[in-house]
């Protein structure tokens, strides 16, 4: 049975049995692009697929879908707490651990369909197999995404249903024809790095797609978008953009799981995941913490405990 068939069968079972109200997975649209799918009806499960373009981190939809129907009642014992199923790769599954650690929802509200992913292609999310409008014509064979090339765990860390067998590390390693941008950055002097990043941020249009795609960026009102913000101006200027990107990277330190969706969605091809990756390295070195390996908060995230218990 293909992964697609397994996912469809599971979805049919969960929806048919009323165990979840929706299965959040992937489908292929009329242009041949893979995209998120929300399946409510067991008759519809044939929409669901698995392929090497399943790049989206579907956990970003969980906060909204698991919001209590009756917010005035407490979560947990709430028998009306919503339940959803979500299809995740290993990187996405770590996001679930981070969200659980931050009390976004309860574990029993999820049926996690984990897929032992074999890697996601670099032009996933683009129109069919064609290059996006903003890729210059090159003759490279299809590449895996950077996050896949240095992926350490291919089996999801959180799952209720596991699809696929854990296999050996995908690791194609850095492609010598295209040296890893991360390595290049580490060899730069601070002045060179500053110049690099300012030139990248220059074309940022502050659309906030990076933030919106991220499961961990879920503040009710983003600091950088507050109407009364005295911290960062509203303008789409270099100072503001630098503050936004660097600030966001710090807000995600110890929380970012490296799914790199922020970078994939950027219409200006700004390699922002490099910032997150560096900070993740720093956090691991200083605290021995990797985001999402277990449902524990990052060591320097303040947790307010409920005085009631």
């Amino acid at each position, binding site marked *: 049975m293909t992964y697609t068939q397994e996912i469809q069968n599971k979805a049919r079972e969960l929806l048919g049995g009323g165990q979840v109200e929706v299965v959040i997975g992937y489908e292929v649209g009329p242009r041949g692009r893979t*995209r998120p799918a929300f399946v409510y009806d067991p008759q519809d499960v044939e929409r669901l697929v698995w392929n090497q373009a399943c790049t989206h981190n579907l956990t970003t939809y969980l906060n909204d879908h698991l919001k209590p129907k009756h917010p005035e009642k407490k979560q947990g014992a709430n028998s009306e707490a919503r339940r959803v199923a979500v299809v995740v790769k290993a990187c996405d599954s770590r996001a679930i651990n981070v969200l659980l650690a931050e009390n976004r929802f309860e574990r029993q509200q999820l049926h996690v369909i984990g897929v032992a992913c074999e890697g996601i292609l670099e032009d996933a999310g683009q129109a069919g197999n064609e290059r996006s409008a*903003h*890729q210059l014509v090159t003759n490279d064979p299809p590449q895996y995404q950077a996050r896949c090339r240095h992926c350490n765990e291919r089996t999801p860390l959180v799952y209720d249903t596991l699809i696929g067998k854990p296999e050996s590390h995908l690791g194609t390693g850095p492609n010598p024809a295209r040296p890893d941008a991360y390595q290049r950055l580490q060899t730069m002097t601070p002045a060179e790095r500053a110049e690099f990043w300012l030139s990248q941020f220059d*074309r940022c249009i502050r659309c906030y*797609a990076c933030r919106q795609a991220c499961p961990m960026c879920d503040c009710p009102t983003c600091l950088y978008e507050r109407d009364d913000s005295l911290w960062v*101006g509203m303008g789409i200027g270099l100072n503001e953009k630098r503050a936004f990107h660097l600030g966001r990277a710090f807000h995600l330190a110890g929380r970012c799981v490296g799914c790199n969706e922020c970078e994939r969605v950027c219409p200006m091809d700004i390699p922002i995941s490099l910032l997150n990756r560096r900070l993740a390295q720093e956090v691991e070195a200083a605290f021995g913490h990797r985001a999402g390996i277990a449902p524990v908060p990052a060591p320097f995230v303040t947790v307010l405990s409920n005085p009631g218990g």
Partner: protein
Amino acid sequence: MKLTTHEELSSWLDSLAENLNLIAPRAVDGVPLYRPVQHSQEVLWDFTRPVLSVKEAFFPATERLLTIEKGNRQIRLIESLSEEPQVVFGVRPCDARGVKMLDALFTAAPGDPYYARRRANTTLVGLACREMGPTCFCTSMGGSPDDASNMDVMLYPIEEGYLVQAVTSKGQALLDNYALQSREHSTGQAEQKTAFVYEQAEKYPLPERSAWAAQFEDAYWDQVAERCLSCRICAYVCPTCRCFDVRDEALPEAMSNASPSGNGSSQFERIRCWDSCTGEAYRRIAGGHNPRAEKGQRLRNRFLCKFDYYPRQYALGSAACTGCGRCIDACPVNIDITEVMQHIAEVSQC
């Protein structure tokens, strides 16, 4: 029409770049964008279209409206209008069509002088597309990849070089003042121009304007919006979207007498910058009420505005979508405007 070679055209561009602001498609870290160029060698030639539209030249992402000098019980306002003449080269016909719609909007009384001044100071030099990209659908929206309307000069790439057409007197002046070398083209000019064959997989149905509002209650909007990230890219890359936000911001230069509220700075600028109705906070008002709190409501507004409200409000005579396809390329979750058009067309027939 005259014929010019690639070398002569490049030479002309060099001359323009030396004397005024020349904006042309350039690869910025591989991303094609309309950007200032200093030399024709920086110009990008072989690609479908820039990621952002040409609207930036008239309606920049951030623009200063006023400078505000604030002292003790004294206020001085200085408006800030652009003076620089500029030429945009390599304008795609879909973008020029978008400019025409923005013209209708910004010049509708009372006219917006910021847009008007930039527009008056700009000459548009268009370049016809040799072929349509995989997500292009301008021919479904009343446009065409070789449409010269709204350009000042139009260039058609052919084997021997480019056919040059002066569309307006402003365009003719640009050709004359900077002496673009050219010669009469020997073979039938009309035939050459229409030698482009725009093969296209599909032509998309464009529903009547009234069909859109009729689907206001359709559950379709919520269904499509489920995967929407409210990321706002669609509005930012769109040639006709023009929503903006206005606010005062402190200027770092003069930090002197405290204003009555204790804010240390005495110099401010009133700026406007791009915004999008798909953003969550778009219609939130002070006090927290948000009439478009749901993604489906916002997405519905975006499409209804594009196909019904905007054309009606500014008497466009066509939908406010130019079929450039940027939103299709850019949407991270493949919300596809052509699929929406097809859905509306289908349900309107029932």
